[in-house]
């Protein structure tokens, strides 16, 4: 059963037309009430503060209040460089979050390691957790971050975040076992 991993925005829009009303409503609610967990480590944290600040307002997208507990949040924003020492902490925080959960790799250090290629920098946080949206930039401009957030919201609406796909996949597997 082909479960597509990468899509385009056009495909997302087409899929949206085919999903059920309940699914659309749930996803609409989810995307406009994201509780972020800003896992801030480095310089991108300054740009995250700017994005959450008064000029590039994150609150107008519903993602206003950062919940500094993984149990209470659903969007993990890995902001800044992740090092090998930090790896177990990131993984544990991701595991502690409840489904459905999404991850944004904010900045090029969290996406691929940036221009740090050494014995301590993890080349991207997707080495240990699955990432939904990557934001390049060192640090990314706040407009890039807002664009990424809108992209993530489109993904959530069409049900194509990694966590939602996992859920669907498990349902399909369970359904195929029942049939077989």
């Amino acid at each position: 059963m082909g479960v597509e991993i990468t899509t385009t925005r056009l495909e997302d829009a087409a899929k949206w037309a085919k999903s059920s009303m309940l699914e659309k409503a749930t996803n609409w609610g989810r995307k406009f009430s994201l509780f972020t967990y800003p896992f801030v480590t480095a310089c991108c944290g300054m740009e995250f503060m700017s994005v959450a600040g008064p000029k590039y307002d994150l609150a107008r997208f519903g993602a206003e209040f950062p919940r500094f507990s993984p149990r209470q949040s659903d969007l993990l924003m890995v902001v800044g460089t992740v090092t090998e020492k930090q790896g177990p902490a990131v993984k544990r925080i991701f595991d502690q979050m409840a489904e459905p959960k999404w991850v944004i790799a904010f900045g090029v250090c969290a996406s691929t390691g940036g221009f740090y290629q050494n014995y301590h920098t993890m080349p991207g946080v997707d080495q240990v957790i699955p990432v939904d949206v990557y934001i390049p930039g060192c640090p990314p401009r706040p407009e890039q971050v807002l664009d990424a957030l809108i992209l993530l919201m489109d993904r959530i609406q069409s049900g194509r975040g990694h966590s939602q796909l996992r859920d669907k996949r498990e349902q399909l597997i369970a359904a195929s076992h029942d049939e077989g």
Partner: protein
Amino acid sequence: MAQKVLDSLTAQHAAAIEHTESQHGDEIAWVKRDQLLAVATWLKTDPTMLFDAPVFCTCIDRLDWRPLGVPPSQAWTEDKPRFEVCYQLRSVTHRYRLRLKISVPESDPHVPSLAGLWPAFNWQERETFDMYGIRFDGHPDLRRIYLYEEFVGYPLRKDYPKEKRQPLVRRDDLPMNPIKVAREHK
């Protein structure tokens, strides 16, 4: 900048000072390892010196030291000590700055700790130990500071490759990797 610091240091502790130099406005004194504590205590307490402010503590690994534009005899060879531990001190009242250097061979990387005299060197000596493997005798709590305990090796030594990672989290079993799972359950 203040040659008189070096002059009075050599006058007071002639046996302990190997040689002194002044480079780019910095005063540098090479101190014998076993006399380091005596010299440092004198530098801190003597009223003409009063070096009460610690600046930094680090180490230079001379393994690849082959400088251009100088006679080849200055390059590092196997018989010379490999590490140079550097301490930089500052005097608040007299406004002097001084760098102490201690040559340390690779076979015996031990240096007396100055953490008892200046508390700032506590963490900085831990950092030097973490990065270079120099053991500081008399340090209250010598363990790694930047890297994790499971890390093997001393990364800032010249023979440690830059990109040799030692990951703490295993990378090969990622159950959440969607491509892997989709293929397995086909």
